[in-house]
């Protein structure tokens, strides 16, 4: 059996979002190996039971010192193992110096994604194309599809995750993501939880998060009257990967910012009600598959850049604070949706997961459709004779060197 190695060295959410690529490779009859940070080993086993996992140290959390007695010996062993396996393909996914160095182990001709050829970091033509498309973030494609398209014969988007349906176990709430600016503060979140609970049959609520969100969970609990609080369980910091997956798989709804748990929810077919603001943009990193809802803040500065400070007084947070917001959550009636927000529902098309406007506005919808068709033709999924040509997009996103050097992106 031929083997493929997928190197995914980033975080929880990205590991889940690699699913379409992994399923595609398995669908091509390849034995799929996955190289990840060791903190995600058990999660990877839960997500991808058929994959062979190689867990190294790529993250800094929990490692003291300069890594000489941890990162070096542990990774050396993993690299020895990887070197001994005859991989047909290596999918090196992250634009990170660590990935480039890891790529040095292999024949560059076998590496797809990020490679290092005689010391020179080189990006796969599709990755480079993806970087160009990402300059138009509002119309960008889902990162799941971006990674999956590195392989031919992508499985249909609708087969990646089953359509999301309520499971009867109440509502889950993820309190914060990695970036605090992308999450709703608890005083904003509390009334929205109440509103969602009011229309859900099972009144149980579970609060989810890492150990660092434990206190936030307690503070959030204190916002509710005792009659409601008694039905709320604060599981922050208490769940291992398996427990987390079990809990999320039984929920009716997961209320969350753009988080790893959100992607896990999509993986498990549990409906997501996502709050996307600041740098989060549902077309890029929204939950994958059909049946999820995203409330997306859309301002002139959206989506912003995570690493840069906000000079606009977090204006994208303000509509979530409006009183009518809770009413919208309860009724889902567009009239109650505060200005500045839009509601999108996830669906699948020829290219991947797409978001369809349900309330509010989507000013770049036409451009996005055009861009998706352009990408579809580029990838050979659509017939350019029928859908194209796209001269303006081609001029913007194709570079001279693409055809001058004869590379097929």
């Amino acid at each position, binding site marked *: 059996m031929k083997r493929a190695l997928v190197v995914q060295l980033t975080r929880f959410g990205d590991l889940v979002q690699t699913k379409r690529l992994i399923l595609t490779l398995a669908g091509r009859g390849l034995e799929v190996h996955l190289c990840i940070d060791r903190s995600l080993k058990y999660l990877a086993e839960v997500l991808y039971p058929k994959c062979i996992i190689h867990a190294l140290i790529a993250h800094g959390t929990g490692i003291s010192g300069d890594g*000489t007695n941890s990162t070096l010996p542990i990774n050396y062993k993993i*690299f020895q193992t990887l*070197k001994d396996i005859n991989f047909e393909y290596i999918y090196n996914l992250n634009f990170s110096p660590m990935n480039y160095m890891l790529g*040095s182990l292999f024949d560059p001709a076998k590496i797809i994604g990020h490679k290092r050829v005689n010391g020179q970091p080189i990006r796969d033509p599709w990755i480079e194309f993806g970087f160009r498309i990402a300059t138009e973030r509002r119309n960008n494609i889902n990162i799941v599809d971006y990674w999956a398209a590195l392989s031919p014969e992508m499985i249909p988007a609708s087969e990646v995750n089953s359509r999301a349906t309520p499971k009867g176990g109440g509502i889950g709430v993820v309190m914060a993501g990695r970036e605090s600016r992308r999450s709703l503060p608890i005083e904003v979140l509390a009334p929205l939880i109440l509103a969602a609970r009011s229309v859900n049959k099972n009144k149980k609520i579970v609060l989810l998060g890492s150990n660092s969100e434990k206190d936030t969970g307690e503070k959030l609990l204190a916002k509710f009257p005792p009659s409601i609080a008694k039905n709320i369980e604060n599981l922050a910091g208490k769940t291992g990967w398996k427990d987390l997956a079990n809990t999320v798989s039984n929920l009716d709804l997961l209320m969350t910012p753009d988080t790893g748990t959100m992607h896990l929810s999509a993986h498990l077919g549990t409906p997501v009600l996502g709050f996307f603001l600041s740098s989060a943009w549902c077309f890029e990193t929204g939950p994958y598959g059909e049946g999820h809802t995203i409330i997306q803040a859309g301002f002139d500065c959206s989506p912003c850049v995570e690493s840069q400070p906000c000079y606009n007084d977090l204006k994208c947070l303000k509509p979530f604070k409006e009183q009518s917001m809770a009413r919208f959550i309860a009724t889902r009636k567009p009239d109650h949706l505060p200005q500045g927000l839009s509601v999108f529902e996830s669906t699948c098309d020829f290219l991947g997961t797409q978001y369809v406007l349900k309330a509010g506005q989507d000013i770049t919808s036409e451009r996005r459709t055009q861009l998706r068709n352009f990408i579809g033709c580029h990838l050979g999924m659509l017939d350019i004779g029928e859908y194209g040509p796209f001269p303006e997009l081609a001029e913007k996103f194709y570079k001279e060197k693409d055809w001058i050097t004869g590379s097929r992106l």
Partner: protein
Amino acid sequence: MLPLYGGSLPVGRFCVAALKEMGHLVETFEAPEFYDAYNALDNLKVTSDRHQYLQNSFLQVLSQAVLAKTETFEPDMVLSMAQAPLTHQALKRLKRDKVVTAMWFVEDFRLFTYWQSFAPFYDIFAVIQKEHFFDKLKEIGVDNTLYLPLAAHPDFHHPLNIGVIDARKYGADVSFMGAGYPNRRMAFRKLIHHGLKIWGSEWEGDHVLDKYIQLGGRRVTSEECVKIFNATKINLNLHSSINVDELVSGGDFINPRTFELAACGAFQLVDRRSLMAEAFSDGELAHFDNLEDLDEKIGYFLAHPNERDLYAEKGRKRVLADHTYVIRMQTLIDFTMDKIDDWPKERTSKELFTPDFPEELKSEVMNLIEKLGLPLNVSFEDLVSAIRLQQGELNPLDTAILFLDEWKKIYKR
């Protein structure tokens, strides 16, 4: 920084080899790889202004490549050979970025007069001549000038046991290796009765010498030179001159061949140069003063092999003691330390074998250090740089060290 082509190219390569031998980390800008593309511009058949524009643009790209490489490699010094493709703009940029630049101008300043244009842009300007050149450089504001004569690289230039086949191909009683300058053409016409073999290029159009030109007059590689030197009884070494009237020009600088022949333990008859007395003592080189003298000495030394051997032995000993590229590079470095404040900049380097270094990996890392030719007390940073210079697929240990380096940078450890 190697030049695109030319005589200073092998000198540049020997500098690289010497610096590596001295334990420095050297990254080479392989300009010759770009030379074919540059020459292809000559076949365009376009107007002259377009042609000029394209050539300049091409050289701008090369300069940009050097800047990018400098940015990545962060060298303590950018050392250029004469004709290195660095534009004024790039040199200004390096100065602004406080990257110390040095040029070893291994050309005759009277013939290759372009130095006036670029010398002021270098921090250190090393030359192979003294008289007038230092003054002229000072006049245009170049202060850090260093006399740095050429040299040999004993790992490369050494005595060889020449086999029968090579002896037939490269061997001769008398031979000359070098380009066909006018003074040489004139001289050698009168020496053909010694069964002269002439190696090297630019000998075209000389009906008398035509049949003595070897390998069709193509450029001879450095490896071939060593074979020729070793297989020849008398190597003629006549310094070039464009002056036909004057066979022995009596110029100042010593050509590389003088050092290379001596390092090979080969016998040479060489014309006197004004700077030779401080480089070689009596009995270390056999000289000639004019054509008649040369003709006569060829006959004499052909008949006296023991005397040839004596010169060759003494000459080689002197070169090994005083005229190697390692010594030249050390002189350049010492000079730079003297002239440039706080050079080289202190690097924050960390000890490789810290107390918590895993015991089980120590011997493997030691083997790696040995394989890379690094000192045993190499710092982590220098080990990483040396691994980075390797080509092709890396082994797991190399990869693990590079990975650790990136990991440390990302998490600031």
